[in-house]
């Protein structure tokens, strides 16, 4: 393990960057949604104010120590996973754990959060969590196929290497594996929990599901987790399919900053695509979302995967 100065700086900066970007993304998306609704919308900084307010509440209530643990786990998991996502071509820690490690790291936060919400004893939160997990099982199939296709195509499981392999003009994986990219974007919709796949937090059905008993700083922790997980998930897509936002040569600090900005803009773009789908859809039922994900996206991902496998065998 040898870390350069840039790596060290990035290790400390990444969580802060993800924090800021996440809330910025959410703020922009609220403005974006408002404009689609022909409203003015809240200020872009509204998310920061919301989190400040939640942490500034004079009291907050908890049902047991597991609820505290759940709030902690959510933030722990998301910080640990953001460190394994290359940002602007800079593989922060991702050379120490590859895509499969990341796939499992991503689960810490939701599972931990689910623990905390389950401990509140409210059936709504249990329903929300069970819906969330079922949704995960639905999109996991196409998404796993996408991951495998990308990994087999570049013959590496390391996300850093995948980003590095996409360097250069028109070398992005979205051009090489367009079907996989479509399937991944469809999976992203459920991963981000946007409509039509927002069953876990259906406010009008199950009173915001997992968050039903969370208030004050507990809700604040979950808001931080939500904001950062958007960056993680959208950023994962950018790294997998959009070349990790690497446009400038990353040797200099200036180039790195430029790459990070490009990466952030691409991630924001993916997030806004998801949000615009969100604004025009209603909510699916659970069975419908399972049928959806095990239908078209799985077919697309499977086609792409078989293309990769067959071409690796040298038949084509």
């Amino acid at each position: 393990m040898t870390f350069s100065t840039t790596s060290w700086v990035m290790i400390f900066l990444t969580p802060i960057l993800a924090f800021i970007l996440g809330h910025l993304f959410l703020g922009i998306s609220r403005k974006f949604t408002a404009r689609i609704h022909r409203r003015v919308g809240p200020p872009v900084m509204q998310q920061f104010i919301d989190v400040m307010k939640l942490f500034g509440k004079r009291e907050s209530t908890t049902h047991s120590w597991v609820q505290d643990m759940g709030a902690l786990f959510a933030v722990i998991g998301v910080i640990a996973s953001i460190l394994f996502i290359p940002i602007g071509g800079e593989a922060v820690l991702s050379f120490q754990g590859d895509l499969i490690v990341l796939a499992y790291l991503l689960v810490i936060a939701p599972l931990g959060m689910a623990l905390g919400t389950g401990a509140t004893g409210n059936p709504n939160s249990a329903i929300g969590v069970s819906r969330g997990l079922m949704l995960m099982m639905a999109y996991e199939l196409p998404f796993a196929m996408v991951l495998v296709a990308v990994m087999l195509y570049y013959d590496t499981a390391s996300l850093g290497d995948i980003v590095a392999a996409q360097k250069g003009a028109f070398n992005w994986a979205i051009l090489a594996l367009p079907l996989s990219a479509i399937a991944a974007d469809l999976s992203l919709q459920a991963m981000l929990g946007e409509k039509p796949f927002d069953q876990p937090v259906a406010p009008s059905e199950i009173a915001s599901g997992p968050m039903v008993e969370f208030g004050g700083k507990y809700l604040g922790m979950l808001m931080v987790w939500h904001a950062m997980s958007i960056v993680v998930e959208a950023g994962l897509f950018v790294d997998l399919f959009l070349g990790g936002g690497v446009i400038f040569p990353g040797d200099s600090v200036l180039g790195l900053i430029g790459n990070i900005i490009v990466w952030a803009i691409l991630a924001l773009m993916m997030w806004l695509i998801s949000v615009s789908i969100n604004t025009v859809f209603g909510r699916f039922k659970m069975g419908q979302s399972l049928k959806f994900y095990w239908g078209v996206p799985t077919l697309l991902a499977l086609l792409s995967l078989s293309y990769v496998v067959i071409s690796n065998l040298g038949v084509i």
Partner: protein
Amino acid sequence: MSEDEPTGGLLDQDGRPITNLPERGFVRKVADWASARSMWLLWYCTGCGAVELPPSFTSRYDMERYGIGPMATPRQADIFLITGYLSVKTVKRIVRSYEQMQDPKYVLGHGSCTIDGGMYWDSYATVKDVGLYIPVDLYIAGCMPRPEAIFQTFEKLQDMIIKGEAVGWKKYKDNYSWYRKNQDNVFKRGPDWALEEPELR
């Protein structure tokens, strides 16, 4: 609680509870500023007042401009908006929801009915004054109040929060026995009530 027991807390000349303003440090001032900019509502829509809310938060008036938005449960909400008349049976639910909210919390009485019963002033089944059971920070007069009036109230509440004058939550804790006496006149807490009695921390 019987009539003879002292009610505790401070009362003004009308016999209404009052409280002193809490001291605020810098951090608290910042937090208060944030909570003035981000007010999450819990709507208690039993009465007809609810019809004025959709225009307030959809594109015509757009409540979200001020960071005001609806929330699902009392735990997450900052503002308790009681729209329209309150029947005697629902006081229990009002109190329970209010006590489940987390400090600081503010109550808005929406419409004339919350002030004096409004057009139901002589109804046996309607609560005439919500302020007897939970502390109301601001009332919105009118039957119905238009969205303009609602927005005016929100701006006033923002001012009060920033100045540290919206202290209904503290009033409730300081004068809990006074409110409790009024509540007990209307309903009895069952054995499964399970909420702790509030105390100032």
